[in-house]
């Protein structure tokens, strides 16, 4: 009886540990699969046929069809640069220089990945339609109500998710190099919260 209980305990503990660790590494990534650059995280091998099993499992679960990481990268941000979760109750400024990509687009979704309804029908700014300063840099404001300049409308409540996609990225490897990337990727700064 005691042996049976012991085995049962071993089995349940192993199941929890095994599935829990698998779930975490597939859902959130790990040093093996993802890079973090400021608030941005990126699956380094997304879409590659020779990607590791964690990346493949993540993409299967996500149901996305990313272009191979050799020519496009997808950066995700759920938090600002201080690490606080992006919230619809706050306003943010996203500032940066254009990526060295043939095309890039910065899109906003709610925490569940849905586009956010708004009268302006605005869900993203991209390389071609963002208003830039003379030196090429840009500034995008995330807020519930209209702002002058590049304004991305946010949800009434809940969390937010930013996706920065870069197509035909020149020297993808150097973007993943931490120091270069920190200069290259936009910053996400909180201005005010309600």
């Amino acid at each position: 009886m005691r042996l049976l209980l012991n085995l049962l305990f071993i089995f349940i503990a192993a199941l929890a540990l095994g599935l829990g660790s698998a779930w975490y590494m597939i859902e959130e990534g790990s040093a093996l699969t993802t890079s973090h650059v400021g608030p941005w995280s990126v699956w380094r091998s997304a879409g590659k046929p020779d990607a590791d099993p964690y990346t493949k499992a993540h993409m299967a679960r996500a149901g996305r069809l990313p272009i191979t990481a050799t020519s496009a990268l997808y950066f995700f941000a759920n938090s600002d640069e201080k690490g606080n979760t992006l919230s619809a109750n706050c306003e943010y400024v996203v500032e940066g220089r254009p990526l060295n990509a043939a095309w890039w687009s910065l899109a906003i979704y709610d925490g569940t990945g849905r586009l956010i309804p708004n009268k302006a029908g605005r869900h993203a700014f991209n390389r071609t339609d963002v208003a830039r300063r003379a030196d090429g840099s840009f500034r995008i404001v995330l807020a519930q109500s209209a702002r002058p300049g590049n304004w991305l409308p946010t949800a009434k409540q809940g969390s937010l998710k930013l996706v920065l996609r870069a197509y035909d990225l020149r020297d993808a490897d150097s973007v993943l190099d931490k120091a270069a990337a920190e200069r290259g990727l936009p910053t996400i700064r909180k201005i005010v919260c309600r």
Partner: protein
Amino acid sequence: MRTAIVSALGIIFLAALIHITAVLSLPYLAPKNAWARVSALSEANKMVVLPAASPSHQSLPLMASDVRYGVCRFNLDNGPVRLSTQILDDLWSIAFYTPRGENFYAINGRELKRSQIEIIISTRNEVGVKAGASLLDEIEDLVVVDSPVREGIAVIRAPLLGPSYAVQTEAALKRGACTRNLPGSDFNR
């Protein structure tokens, strides 16, 4: 004491086994992977222009609202499949996927250098080319893509240069086609 150590080792060993099994089997088990979603959208060998992503509808998760997508779920069981499309801009791209979402080949407008493209998707060596894709010089505007799988997905991505480009971009994608290549018709255009 001894039991505790044996138990701990047992847990770690079994957990590792479960972990590896879960990770390796997930791509085959995930019910809503991209293949399942695309299969629900269209029959095989047919070009489908996905409706623009909106707050109420996204055909695939985290679609870009400023990109238009043409999708062809190809099946090569009965021979090669021909994909034809306009390429309005250097930024357009065509990416080919296995049912597991592996992007085995991608090419963009800048590399294609033409505004109308015909692509023959065939299984390896069916039309006598080696792995990867090759441009057949003797037949202009024809690209042969060697598919490692008999079934897969081709995705044409058309980034919008601005909101006003949406209508013409969607129209151009809709003029594209994805058809079973009839025997003998491969190279006699």
